């Protein structure tokens, strides 16, 4: 296993599967009355969040605590530039306190990769700008796998603001690593630049028309709806929220069409959801929705990641 988790591309199929298998053990721990494991006793994990987050931060915090690590949360809102301190100075200051792992969320793409060059601690990317969010992709894969079994040959459709989505960028890598087929759907203004060459090189499909993807071709096993950020709505990426929903929302008719083709299809959303915009209440609350499973898997997967990066090779949940 690598020392850091910076990108989903850092993990081989064997490593992803090992993390997901351990996460299954961790998930069992989660269901016990006493959830504490001694595995990371004496280790220090800093959750260093340069950007607001509720679920990812609490999920990492709980994961660390259940593993008996000393978990400390730090937030540094706004870029360090505004404080006159360089990112390097900021993280080296924390690193100097002999921490074992730095879980970093940053508003700038690539920040975790840079930090990893400046510190001895293991760096875990908890979301860097519009680049990647590897633990989100792992928990999504965990959720999919727990419902669908092996993901080989499964078809996952990812819909929404791809340009600004780190969830998409990590998911497309991890899903591919596990052998799934991926189709990404967005209006042209929310497709990342160069995606034509990129998708060809990495072997995933792109489409502008969601209805066509749901109705024809490869039957979707899961549809992942991405959050549309408020600031994009007035940014000229699409005319109005109403028009977005008509083109790209998982509306009740679209959910019906999806389930008509595949009654076992799953609906995922990384949260927080804009109900009525990218996902209808019907879809969010339907039996097909595994949104809360994703949250629950988040803790187990992050326990597993901490374990694989920090602990020895002895049994995890012993």
């Amino acid at each position, binding site marked *: 296993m690598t020392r850091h988790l910076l990108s989903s591309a850092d993990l081989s199929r064997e490593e992803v599967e090992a993390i997901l298998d351990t996460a299954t053990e961790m998930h069992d721990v989660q269901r016990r009355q006493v959830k504490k494991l001694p595995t990371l006793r004496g280790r220090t994990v800093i959750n260093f969040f340069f950007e607001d987050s509720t679920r990812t931060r609490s999920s990492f915090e709980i994961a660390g605590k259940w593993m008996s690590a000393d978990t400390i949360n730090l937030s540094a809102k706004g870029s360090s530039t505004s404080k006159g301190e*360089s990112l390097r100075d900021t993280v080296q200051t924390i690193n100097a306190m002999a921490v074992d792992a730095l879980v970093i969320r940053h508003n700038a793409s690539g*920040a975790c*990769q840079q930090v990893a060059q400046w510190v001895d601690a293991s760096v875990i990317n908890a979301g860097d700008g519009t680049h990647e969010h590897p633990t989100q992709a792992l928990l999504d894969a965990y959720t999919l796998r727990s419902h669908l079994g092996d993901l080989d040959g499964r078809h996952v459709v990812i819909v929404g603001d791809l340009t600004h989505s780190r969830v998409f*960028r990590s998911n497309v890598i991890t899903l591919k690593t596990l052998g799934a087929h991926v189709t990404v759907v967005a209006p042209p203004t929310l497709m990342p*630049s*160069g995606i034509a060459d990129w998708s060809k090189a990495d072997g995933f499909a792109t489409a502008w028309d969601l209805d066509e993807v749901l109705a024809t071709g490869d039957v979707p096993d899961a549809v992942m709806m991405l959050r549309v950020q408020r600031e994009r709505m007035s940014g000229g990426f699409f005319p109005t929220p109403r028009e977005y929903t008509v083109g790209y929302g998982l509306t009740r008719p679209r959910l019906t069409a999806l389930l008509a083709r595949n009654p076992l299809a799953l609906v995922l959303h990384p949260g927080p959801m804009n109900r009525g915009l990218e996902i209808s209440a019907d879809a969010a609350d339907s039996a097909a929705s595994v949104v809360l499973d994703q949250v629950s898997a988040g803790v187990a997967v992050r326990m597993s990641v901490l374990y694989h990066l920090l602990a020895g090779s002895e049994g995890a949940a012993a």
Partner: protein
Amino acid sequence: MSDVLLIRGAELWGPGPDGMPGTGARADVLVRDGVVAEIGAVSAPKDAEVVDADGLVLLPGLVDLHTHLREPGREDAETVSTGSAAAAAGGFTAVLAMANTSPVTDTGEAAERILDLGTAAGLADVVPVGAVTKGLAGEELAELGLMARSRARVRVFSDDGRCVQDARVMRRALEYLRPFDGVVSQHAQDANLAGPQACCHEGEISGRLGLPGWPGVAESSIVARDVMLAEHTGGRVHVAHVSTAASVDVIRWAKARGIRVTAEVTPHHLALGTELVTGYDPVYKVNPPLRPSEDRTALVEALADGTIDAVATDHAPHARHDKEHAFADAAFGMLGLETALSVVADVMVQPGRLTWSEVATRMSVAPARIARLASHGRPVAVGEPANLVLVDPAARTTVDAAASQSLSRNNPWHGRTLPAAVVATVLRGRVTARDGRALTAEEALA
């Protein structure tokens, strides 16, 4: 140091007395009282300092249309003195210092201050570039005429770092500068297409990395607008740091049409590609951004065929603490003065795309002409000012960022081995640098 300098047996690649391209003929060049006194087979006067130039290339001193010396305002990153040292070490005898200092060079007094700092440093002629608009704000014209009439005799005006966005302001500047024979050096970047967050070339790599992209069209659309404004006004426009194939096409078209447009390219846009940003190392963050190979090929061809007139460094020193941020937050720019000639040798001369005579044109004669510098970019001929650079074309050097004369270390060439080395730089008959090191004041006077 002696006032008489004899350069023995150099290959003369600068333009000759008739202005015709140099052919590399071997000769001795005697320099006395700051001018070239004799060329041919010269026996050394007994008071002369003799430089053995066997196998070395003699060019007119290089002229850089585009440097950032950071003084006044950011003397922790560079000063006129340290920037001049880097210039001399790199073979330059004149550098144009961009106006985006703090305060901005937008008055005659500010321009004279830069000129005087350069004179005091004494290692290169430091020629101020004047701002086009007050405070680089893009709204009201700066005191263009007063800068032109000042002792600094400003002829090149630029809001570099920012583009003159407003077409009406650009038009007025081009018109107003006509009596002074001034030129607007435009940083072509449509701010609506490439805003301040745009930090690398927009393409597959920016898409994968999740970095806000800087599309090539944000440059070429402004270049297209500006050449039309130059045609309309009869003014002179210079395109700073051209980075795309489409901009080159527009410039080629405009020149064929007789529009008064010139252009420069940086060594890094010739040699370094957008794929370097993959590791998010801010040393490769520069504006305009490093481009893909299709653009670089077009830039190399355009420099070879003369569509691009000049090589300019865009030497942009930054303190470490302004670079060691997340990529999106880090400062734009990279060092260039000390490595420019070697990069041009690597990309243009060794593959046979430019002769040394053409290097003299692109790095000295043309930039001096664009900036209207009377005593630089001159023929290597009797009676001409002795602004010269002596180059060892066979040398190979591994760049060490720590060894730079600049105060800053944002050097993208660190660790690379490059051909050709500056053996000596001569400013008005005085040696200002030897073997890549600028002389200290004591050495220069010794």
